[in-house]
């Protein structure tokens, strides 16, 4: 069969690509799969290792050479880890602040994007250029004064402080502005003729037409806020305000450094990592859209 195909190909090279694959093509394809499988394994390995380490006993985790699968999976490690520190509270703090922040960011970004795309006014270019300028700059360079400002507002160590100091997203303004510029002018004009106010046009015309951009932005920003560590660790000081990232590090220092509770430390990591991985696998295409539409920083 292969021979026949090969001969046919030799005679009509112009249809080469439409024929059944040659031996060389199969080899190449296999090589590509091997490369991709290799990288997938390397990428996924730390996650797998986290999972299997979480269900080992302390004795087993310290064995050398290490075993891959535990002799007897210690599923109760998850319960024990969950009860060794207020992880429920940490999770709540992260989910609550991240959700509130995303809502505020959507509001402030959509309003600003509306002003930037639907009006012409003096200083508009300057304003946009200024926002553009801070887009790339390291947020950390604002931390000392922002810390002082928050303390003056009496908002250190509070949800309010965490939320308000993150309530504007420069990336969000760009992303939503970009989306609004894609909406045909006629749609907005038609709504105006119907007597719609700017407020109505923004939320009832533009928002529904750019839903996917809003969704993408929400997902990416949510993940970034959930994973946020440096700034929250500066402003949230009491343990009952800790975000999950801060709680994990705290647990790691207490339990991991002396090697006593490594399986529990790994189990605790599972709480933070697995929900995000699931969210990503469900909503993959929206994340990827965010990168393809430009601008999401690594």
């Amino acid at each position, binding site marked *: 069969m292969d021979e026949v195909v090969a001969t046919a190909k030799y005679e009509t090279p112009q249809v080469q690509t439409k024929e059944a694959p040659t031996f060389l093509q199969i080899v190449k394809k296999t090589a590509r799969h091997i490369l991709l499988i290799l990288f997938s394994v390397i990428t996924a390995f730390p*996650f797998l290792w986290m999972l299997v380490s979480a269900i080992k006993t302390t004795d087993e985790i310290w064995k050398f050479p290490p075993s891959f699968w535990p002799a007897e999976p210690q599923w109760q490690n998850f319960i024990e880890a969950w009860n060794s520190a207020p992880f429920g509270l940490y999770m709540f703090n992260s989910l609550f602040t991240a959700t509130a922040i995303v809502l505020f960011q959507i509001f402030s970004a959509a*309003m600003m994007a509306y002003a930037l795309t639907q009006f012409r006014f003096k200083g508009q270019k300057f304003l946009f250029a200024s926002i553009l300028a801070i887009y790339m700059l390291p947020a950390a360079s604002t931390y000392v004064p922002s810390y002082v400002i928050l303390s003056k507002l009496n908002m250190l160590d509070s949800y309010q402080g965490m939320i308000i100091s993150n309530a504007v997203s420069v990336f969000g303004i760009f992303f939503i502005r970009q989306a609004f510029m894609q909406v045909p002018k006629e749609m907005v004009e038609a709504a105006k003729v119907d007597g719609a106010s700017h407020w109505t046009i923004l939320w009832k015309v533009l928002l529904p037409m750019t839903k996917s951009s809003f969704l993408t932005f929400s997902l990416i920003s949510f993940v970034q806020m959930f994973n946020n560590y440096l700034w929250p660790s500066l402003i949230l000081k009491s343990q009952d305000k800790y975000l999950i990232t801060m709680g994990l590090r705290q647990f790691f220092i207490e339990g991991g450094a002396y090697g006593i509770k490594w399986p529990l430390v790994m189990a605790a990591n599972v709480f933070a990592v697995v929900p995000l991985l699931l969210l990503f696998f469900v909503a993959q295409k929206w994340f990827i859209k965010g*990168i393809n539409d430009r601008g999401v920083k690594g």
Partner: protein
Amino acid sequence: MVTSKYKQFLTISLFMLPALILLLVFWFIPMIVSLFISFTDWDYISPTFSLVGLENYSSLLTDKEFYKVLVNTLVFAVFTVLPTMAIGLALALTLNKKIAGSTFYKAIIFSPWVTPMVAVSIVWSWIFQPEVGILNFLLSSVGLPKIDWLGSSTWAMPAVIMVTVWKGIGWVMIFYLEALQRVPADLYESAAIDGAAKWRRFRYVTLPMISPTTFFLLIITTIDALQAYDQIQVLTQGGPAGSTRTLLYMYYQLAFEQFNMGQATAVSTLLVLITALLSVIQFWASKRWVHY
């Protein structure tokens, strides 16, 4: 007419107000204040401070430790950015052809990007564990000596780099894939498809076509590398012996461990200047370079 103009002004202002206030309070004003603090000797605790001119900068620039930090930052940036870009591009090229399971591969390789750096760094610190860690097990199983990854000033930096590259490859890959898909197909068809021609096609067609993307990614991932903190904090806290102390980590230590706000903000000003320079280069280049 006047009232309608006034009304228009009011409407625009109201729409801009939420973002504008927040931008002013948490971005613009802090940036300026930070610059101002860098000319003072403020220690956060005392209510007074005095202006010291450029002293914070000159003491930084004459401090040997600062140059060590600068070199660390450079090493971290270069050895994070180059492998991330090269591997990301290689994977994108592999995935750019029709291949079964490409969505699955893409998802797996991208997935670390969504996970918290703090959590995955903790996992990696277990992988790096010197006596029983899986990485040293792999090394010893091929006859290599065990390495005290996070405890040696030689290997701590490569370890931090490894984690950073692992987390960033997927992002670069997705970005490159999109760029490759925008390379016009007819440019390919005009080229012959034998082995040697394939390399030439890559070298003279694909590579130049995606060069604006390469440049964009180069700048963005460098800026990102300059801001790395979480993995350093979890894995090494800047150690051992300052071997993983980068500019941003030094800033954190000066400001929030030593409360030397003047010197800390001087470091942050330098960081801003470096980042601004890189952004300006990117902005300037993107105006002169067509993106495909």
